[in-house]
């Protein structure tokens, strides 16, 4: 068993160092780059926490949708081909729900403050409340 602190805790300390020390003690351009770097570390921390379970669920949905098992890249390519040809579309049962769930899962890691993501989450909540 590896020792602690955990990778997430170490990354958290690096992000805090970039924001709390580097950004305050350097020129504006480097400070900007340091903020981008701190944001990137936050993204990696979210992916370490959420990425695996999100991809498991994505694979499960793809297998149900396409009726066969396979790996994520191959099944994604198969769905992409079917969408490109028009053989399946947003009205095909399960497709819209799958694409939404997959995209929301990505944004949860990539950009959880993005306006388009927040708007769709809000819409999902409104549907549940109704």
């Amino acid at each position, binding site marked *: 068993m590896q020792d602690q602190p955990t990778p997430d805790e170490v990354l958290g300390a690096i992000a805090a160092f970039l924001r709390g020390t580097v950004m305050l003690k350097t020129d504006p351009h480097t400070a900007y*780059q340091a903020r*981008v*770097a701190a*944001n*990137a570390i936050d*993204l990696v921390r979210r992916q370490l926490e959420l990425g695996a379970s999100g991809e498991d669920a994505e694979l499960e949905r793809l297998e149900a949708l396409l009726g066969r098992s396979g790996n994520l*890249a191959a099944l*994604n*390519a198969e*769905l*992409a*081909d079917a*969408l*490109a*040809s*028009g053989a399946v*579309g*947003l009205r095909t049962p399960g497709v*819209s729900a799958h*694409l*939404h769930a*997959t*995209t*929301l899962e*990505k*944004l949860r890691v*990539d*950009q959880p*403050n*993005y*306006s*388009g*993501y927040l*708007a*769709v989450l809000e819409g999902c909540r409104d549907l549940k409340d109704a």
Partner: protein
Amino acid sequence: MNSAARGEDAVRSALAALAPRLRPAARSISGLEPLSGGATQEIWRFNLDTTAGAQPLIMRRAPGGDRLSQMTVGLDVEARLIAAARSCGVPAPEVLHVLAPEDGLGLGFIMEFVAGETLGGRIVKAASLAGARDRLAYSCGQILARIHSIDSGAFPTLARQTPADLIEQWRAGYRRDSVRRPVFDLAFHALSAICPPAPQKACLVHGDFRTGNLMIGPEGVRAVLDWELAHIGDPMEDLGWLCVNSWRFGRIEKPVGGFGEYADLYAGYEAGSGSPVNRAMAKWWEMFGTLRWGVMCASSLAAFRGAAAGVERAMIIRRTSETEIDLLRLMEN
């Protein structure tokens, strides 16, 4: 072109020699400062010292070549575009000089410096710009109508593509990438199905008219910047691109650039051009623009893994999913 001045001291001497030709009363230059320097393009700021005082100027140049990519128009054409736009009443800086070989500065041009705000986040939020925001969508419509009135025949080298050509070009760009994105395939299919025909009246299109490329002051638009993606095409392209959610900087409820309403943009355009806005077409271009930006983000992966690694680029690539959620929202509506 190999004799183009490199380094700050050489640029300073070359500009000082050029000074009297920029303004007859000019004796020298001062305050030279590089604002940004890419691999092929540079932007410099300096003051032209005249008996009447110092005039701040900008030089855009490419000491060793002039195009960022195949898609950009070239600096000489960019200078002519800015001058043509200005003479059609578009807010744009005065171009004082197009660099000639004997200037020893490479390819490029010198223009007036315009002060103002270009940062998207501040334009959509700053309290000091609240008054400007109220009128900005209408004003952008008027300005776009003027841009589209520029005589496109004077620019024979600009790219000319139909909407169908553009779909194929960007689809091919997406498919060069090894990663498949079902949402992109769905969006390409949906856009193809309702692809507009080649425009009856092809216009000069700015190509990158959006929050971030507009210099804003409390009174409104001071200058339209970044003409390097100009081309000949459907005028509705510019209206759609301005409304892509990526340029709303968090203000999703303000569809025009994060500051205004569709109705105001269209009213300004119709008042300026005298012809009606094809709303369905503008909406098609908004969706196409969203997909185009998504493909641009995603296709940076090869550059990131190649010669242009960097955290900022990595984070831009990870914004691709933003365009995927926006495409899903546009297709559900």
